[in-house]
């Protein structure tokens, strides 16, 4: 099968959408849709009951795990343990509020970063949130920050697709004359994976801003703001995706706070509040017409 388009990037994006739809179909086989309501038919006088909202599915990714400890604080607090505990806390809060939640790891194991994004894609999640704690050469560095994927990463992938198309067509810089390479080319799935997050960048940016705002509001922490970076775990996610750095384990004061159960409770409540806001804004995948999906 070949994909032909006058514009190479458009062709790639179309392919991503097809892949996303296909992965969603696969996930649908594993996760049956919500059962139809079985209540008695309403009487003609009564207003129709509101349709059951589709569950908003969140995939939480506790960073690192297994042999990969991540950052380690001065007293020995490990990022992988903090991230897993925070994911569990957040999952409990979200489930209590009607979210469907899946964790990329339930214990001390270490899936690859692409496997983590794949979990979110197969689950057809509405949101992907990767939880981390930071480290710096400066022991004074502190505060939380929220990342979404940088444009550089997706631009690089788009350029690669364009170059491949031109190479395949044996043409130079004229994209209108380019025929797409064969979709069986083993390089294509890898490049499309790299571009998967492209069409969700705007929503990812909005989610990042909401998360950061909630963290700032709920906690007395330094606002390090919303940032962009080429983080591998975000690259392949076909949904709004952010990476949250909860604080700096290398700052002794902040490590102490991150080790405290009460502080973790506040952190998880702030994150839950942010995800509720985002759900209200965009709705579950496919449930709200007129969203960017």
């Amino acid at each position, binding site marked *: 099968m070949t994909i032909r388009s006058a514009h190479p990037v458009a062709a790639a994006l179309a392919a991503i959408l097809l892949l996303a739809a296909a992965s969603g179909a696969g996930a649908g086989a594993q996760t049956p849709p919500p059962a139809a309501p079985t209540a008695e038919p309403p009487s003609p006088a009564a207003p129709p009951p509101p349709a059951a909202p589709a569950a908003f599915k969140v995939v939480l990714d506790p*960073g*690192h795990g297994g042999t*990969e*400890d*991540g*950052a*380690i604080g001065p007293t020995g607090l490990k*990022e992988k343990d903090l991230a897993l505990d925070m994911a569990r806390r957040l999952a409990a809060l979200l489930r209590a509020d009607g979210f469907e939640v899946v964790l990329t790891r339930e214990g001390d194991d270490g899936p*690859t*970063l*692409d496997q983590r994004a794949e979990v979110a894609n197969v689950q057809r999640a509405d949101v992907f949130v990767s939880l*981390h*704690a*930071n*480290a*710096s*050469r*400066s022991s*004074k*560095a*502190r*505060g939380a920050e929220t*990342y979404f994927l*940088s444009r*550089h*990463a997706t631009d*690089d992938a788009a350029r690669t697709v364009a170059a491949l198309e031109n190479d395949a067509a044996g043409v130079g810089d004229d994209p209108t004359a380019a025929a797409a390479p064969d979709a069986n080319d083993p390089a294509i799935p890898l490049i499309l994976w*790299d571009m998967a997050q492209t069409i969700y960048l*705007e929503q990812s*940016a*909005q989610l*990042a*801003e*909401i998360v950061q705002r909630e963290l700032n509001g709920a906690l007395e922490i*330094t606002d*390090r*703001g*919303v*940032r*962009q*970076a*080429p*983080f*591998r*775990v975000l*690259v392949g996610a076909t949904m709004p995706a952010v*990476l949250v*750095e909860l604080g*700096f*384990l*290398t700052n002794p004061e902040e490590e102490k706070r991150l080790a405290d159960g009460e502080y973790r409770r506040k952190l998880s409540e702030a994150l839950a509040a942010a995800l509720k806001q985002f759900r209200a*804004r965009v709705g579950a995948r496919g449930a709200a017409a007129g969203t960017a999906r």
Partner: protein
Amino acid sequence: MNRRSAAAVGLAAGVVGGLLILAGFGLSSCGRGTRGREDGAGAAPGGAGAPAPVAPPDTEVPYREVTIYLRAPGEALALAAVPARIVDFPSPVERARQIARLVLDGVPDATGAVAPARPGVRLREALIDDRGIAWVDLDGPSLRAVGGSDEEMALVAALARSLNENLEAVVRVGFLVSGEPAETLAGHVDATRTYTGYEWPGPPPPASLLPPAPAPQAAP
């Protein structure tokens, strides 16, 4: 001390002196500024009482001034340009190795800039391919010391920017871990792509990315 022992001491001093000079010659001959010594003028060991051999002055080694990028002091992730010098090998690959080691080890800097990652990260190799991509191969076990996205981003950016800026042959910089392609160096930054070193810290995003909230619907 009789004449025989004095002769023995003189011989030993001569041998040691000769070895020192040869060692100095061998070291400095890695560069290009040692041809003046190839006439053997420095190779004649003196006997007992001869002046101690003098190492060639620094000016004879062809150093090259470079600018390397280290982590700037302070809370925010930023790189600081720090002057340094390397031996001016003709091969850009040799220069790339020296630059990468300087970044990993850090150099004394009055402003307080430090190596981007904690000490211990080890360079296995640095190569430049015919596309102008400098490949920095880092030792996997030594990367376990790197934790946190801040430290990893600083490491990638400092190496990429330092190599890109000082070597004309380098267009972009890629990374290997123990000789193999890897997802990341330490769990965050995508190492399946190459970098110029100027990708971040980038400009801050706009003040607000959120569209205006929808107006609340009036109650019926």
